[in-house]
């Protein structure tokens, strides 16, 4: 068996294990978790929150900057307001301009990272004037 085959076989072995994970019924998943002392629902929410935060972080970091000297307005803001004031500001904008709410997903499941991204977007869109709210 060549070393190259070892690497390839390891991938196949892992996928074989994944096939088993996919074959488990909802009842079997809960039963197995219970035996291991895991709350299926709590663990699912922990993963969801973590994945949500990762996706929001990538979006924040991946903003295209076409002009290398250009810094978006949100990037020029010295400091965002604290998170509660920031949420109040964002809610105020949506209350005043409901048409913007289409992109807000009803305000549900928003992580702090989501709120910060949203705040920056609204600053860049001119809906929030940062100078008025900086810490």
């Amino acid at each position, binding site marked *: 068996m060549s070393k190259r085959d*070892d690497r390839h076989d390891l991938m196949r072995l892992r996928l074989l294990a994944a096939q088993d994970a996919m074959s488990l019924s909802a009842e079997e998943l809960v039963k197995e978790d219970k035996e291991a002392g895991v709350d299926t629902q709590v663990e699912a929410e922990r993963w969801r929150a973590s994945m949500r935060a990762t996706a929001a972080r990538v979006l924040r970091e991946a903003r295209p900057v076409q002009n290398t000297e250009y810094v978006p307005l949100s990037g020029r803001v010295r400091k965002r307001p604290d998170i509660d004031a920031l949420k109040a500001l964002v809610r105020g904008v949506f209350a005043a301009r409901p048409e913007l709410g289409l992109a807000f997903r009803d305000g549900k499941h928003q992580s702090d990272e989501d709120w910060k991204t949203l705040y920056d977007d609204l600053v860049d869109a001119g809906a929030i004037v940062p100078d008025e709210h900086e810490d």
Partner: protein
Amino acid sequence: MDSAGHEMKPIATAEQIRTAIEDLTDEDYARLRRAGSAFLYGSEYTDPLELMNEAIARAMHGAGQAKGRHWPLHVPFVAFLIMTMSSIANASTESPTQTLTDSLADFVPEGVAYSDFAIGPLRAASTEEECATEEERAAESAKSAKVFADIEAFFANDEEVLMLVLCLRDGQRPREIQESAGMTVTQYNTARRRLRRGLTKLGLGGERP
């Protein structure tokens, strides 16, 4: 069709990926947790959630970009995430330009074509990078051999799982393994379950599935 003759399929946007994360059920997360846990042993990861977050980051980077990890929208999100986690776990042991081969066709999640995942490497390496990593790949090869030795030692007292591993290493596909090992469907499925639990135990040091 693109220049390589592949049919162009719709690729998810960043917002579609974020929506899909919200739409996953508790059972989906439980399956993803198990698949990720089984991928840890022999990889650089020690936490399935860390591996999953890397998969999400790669998918988000690929959204709307010509290069990167793309989620073809006709592929179930769970299947896409499992295959992406698998690729990441294997990334250090793969050639950077290696894509899935026919021999993996029977190992992708049920109901999905393996060609859906033959969508290019997670990243493209320069010629310089490939030369520079030759030594690293030799080290990874030795590491993979050791991982297999550990796995075989772990299952030394479980003849059925050991047979499953040996048949797989012999190049057999799942259906062939079952036949040549003389297993019933139930025996094969329970052996596969013990394999998954064993890999999880090795990867997590005996922690939860």
